[in-house]
């Protein structure tokens, strides 16, 4: 199998970060340290002020800042090929690096969809030229994402497919999902599932509840998601396969995952920053940036997702970064495409709305921001000597307004636009090289 993650390799960093508060729950670091990166590797972790920059190394003053293991997002839409007016591998990975990410996994619902080896190969070639941070790809479960015939999963895996997904659509047929899970025994790779019953969702454009009743907009009921999750957990249990539930939005889904986990099913789940922090109340404004699938649901659903992320029923935070061009979103709500961007705001939104009020502990959030890696069989970033440097430096006290300086993403359909957040990424080192540096953030010595 080819290495699954690819990017345009940059110069390997020689960098000394002094006196930053290093926080890595996995290695137990939670105190100010100096961290020396040499040739893209973490060479030394020392007492604050204890290390000196070797010849030619940059030095960065991390006093009052936090150095975290960089984040991994198992669920983004980079829109290449075919929809480069929304995003491409360069702008999408730039947005990711600006959000503190060192790796992202791109979904295959592009144009054409990624359902064959030649398309995956050309995408990987493009990533080797354009991606600023490592990108992995998940091709389709079914040909043409039509839900009928399996893709050539064995060949795709050989080429570096991380797993498979028809994200954007459910695998409607229980039999097709069963066949994919049988095939998984041979080829491996998690099946990431967008769970929705198309008949129950109908023409729905938002959560079915009090707000949809008021607006007269057709609703997407919670049972559209939860019934499919319950079904697929039973199929995965029967076939002893591994399924990963994308963007969980409803409390009933949380319950279905918890029940399946209790039975020993290999099921994992992700929570998006928007489902963790927003509800359908905001949709009263009919702001199309708040239109996504699955939709924002009730406060009760939001609380269930927070609790599930805390207790591990949901394993990781994933953005479902879904860029759309301005004119595509500047239409009446019911006509607008589903999706919000999220890479640049993920940490800050969760930090501001959940960590600062004391709802979630910072170490837990830091852990969940990269725990998607293990689900996909990727290395988890750790701050540890001898490891490739995948770190992000943040100023947790810095306040900023989303969108005021524009976005690194090509699109601006961010559900948090205009919000004042705390926690700003100053610098991201991905795969050993500096992938992002905030414009105003100065190097002490070069």
């Amino acid at each position, binding site marked *: 199998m080819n290495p699954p993650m690819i990017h345009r390799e940059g110069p390997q960093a020689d960098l000394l970060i002094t006196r930053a508060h290093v926080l890595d729950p996995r290695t137990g670091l939670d105190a100010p340290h100096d961290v020396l990166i040499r040739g893209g590797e973490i060479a030394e972790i020392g007492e604050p002020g204890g290390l000196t920059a070797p010849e030619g190394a940059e030095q960065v003053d991390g006093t009052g800042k936090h150095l975290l293991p960089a984040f991994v997002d198992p669920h983004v839409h980079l829109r290449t090929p075919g929809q480069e007016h929304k995003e491409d591998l360069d702008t999408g990975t730039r947005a990711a690096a600006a959000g503190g990410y060192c790796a992202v996994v791109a979904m295959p619902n592009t144009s054409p969809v990624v359902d064959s080896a030649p398309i995956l190969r050309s995408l990987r070639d493009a990533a080797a030229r354009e991606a600023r941070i490592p990108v992995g790809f998940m091709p389709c479960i079914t040909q043409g994402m039509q839900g009928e015939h399996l893709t050539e999963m064995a060949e795709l895996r050989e080429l570096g497919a991380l797993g498979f997904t028809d994200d954007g659509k459910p695998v409607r047929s229980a039999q097709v999902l069963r066949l994919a899970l049988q095939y998984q025994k041979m080829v491996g790779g998690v099946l990431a599932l967008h769970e929705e019953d198309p008949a129950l969702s109908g023409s729905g454009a938002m959560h079915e*509840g009090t707000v*949809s*009743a008021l*607006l*007269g*907009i057709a609703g997407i009921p919670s049972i559209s998601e939860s019934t499919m999750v319950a079904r697929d957990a039973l199929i995965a249990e029967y076939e002893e396969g591994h399924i990963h539930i994308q963007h969980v939005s409803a409390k009933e889904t949380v319950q279905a995952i918890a029940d399946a986990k209790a039975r020993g099913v290999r099921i994992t789940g992700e929570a998006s920053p928007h489902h963790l922090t927003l509800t359908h109340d905001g949709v009263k404004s009919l702001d199309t940036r708040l239109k996504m699938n699955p939709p924002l649901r009730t406060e009760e659903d939001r609380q269930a997702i927070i609790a599930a992320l805390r207790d591990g029923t949901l394993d990781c935070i994933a953005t479902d970064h879904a860029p759309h061009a301005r004119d595509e979103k*500047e239409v*009446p709500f*019911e*006509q607008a495409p589903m999706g919000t961007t999220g890479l640049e705001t993920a940490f800050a939104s969760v930090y501001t709305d959940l960590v600062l009020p004391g709802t979630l502990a910072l170490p837990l959030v830091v852990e969940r921001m990269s725990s998607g890696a293990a689900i996909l069989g990727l290395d988890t970033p750790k701050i540890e000597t001898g490891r490739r440097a995948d770190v992000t430096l943040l100023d947790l006290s810095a306040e900023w307004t989303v969108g005021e300086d524009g976005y690194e993403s090509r699109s601006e359909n961010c559900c948090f636009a205009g919000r004042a957040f705390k926690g700003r990424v100053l610098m991201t080192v991905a795969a050993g090289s500096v992938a992002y540096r905030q414009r105003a953030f100065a190097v002490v010595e070069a």
Partner: protein
Amino acid sequence: MNLLSVEHDLDRARIERIVELARSFEEVAHRPIKKVPALRGRTVLNLFYESSTRTRSSFELAAKRLSADVVNFSASGSSVEKGESLKDTVLTLSAHKPDAVVVRTPWAGSSELVAQWSGVAVVNAGDGKHEHPTQALLDIYTLHKKLGSLEGLNIWIVGDVLHSRVARSNILAFQLMGAKVTVAGPPTLIPRNIEALGCEVRYDLDGLKEADVVYALRMQNERIEQPYLPSLREYAKQFQVNGRRLSPRQVLMHPGPVNRGVELSGEVVDSPQAVIATQVESGIVVRMAVLYEILEGAGSPRGAAQRERQLLA
């Protein structure tokens, strides 16, 4: 000033002001020359993305009776069919410098977007299944005419509430005027959580006798195909407002067009209790009042009323 929704733009005071203004326009319809110069030189643009003969012509007549110039723009046979977005259409039409835009579309919230993009006064003539505020106003006007006031009235709205913008606007507006609202219909056509709007929900007509006003909604054939209902026959059996269910003291309303034999039986449509024709008549004077209010009456209602007495004189 705009009229985009009952929820955001109307309170009891504004509704009463519009009803008062409409009453003063009533006599224009009985003149040999049905016109006053109140909006002379003003341009009203009717922007309709859904086929609608009644509402559009009602707005058109209202504007013309106030001497405004009217341009009708309908989505079929226009640039819209060539793929132009709502925003581009609005920007293009704004270049014609209308003073007011009356807009109907199949999408909730679109009149608000038109208001943002055009920068002129906008009247919502129906946005998806969301709201239809002038219908609510003309229904209130009709009830004022018939019963004097809505205070304390018991109003039942019967039928396909799920797909009805008329229902949503009326549930809100009738309550603003002091009425108690009950919606009744098959559970498949009553939106989940509709009681959040303050109304009561019934799945049968057993208590219909307690209503002072029965407001029947139009049942569309598509609902059978979709299939919210097993058949129109079954719907009629359970929910048709007919001579057996309607008592003589009750007022019967319907937004039109009526499906005789489905939501209403023929005999009740033709009965003296039905005020369906009055609703249509009220539509014109209420829309005159709304157009006049948003174009001339902003700021000082008293000043406007004075000006208007002069104009009518």
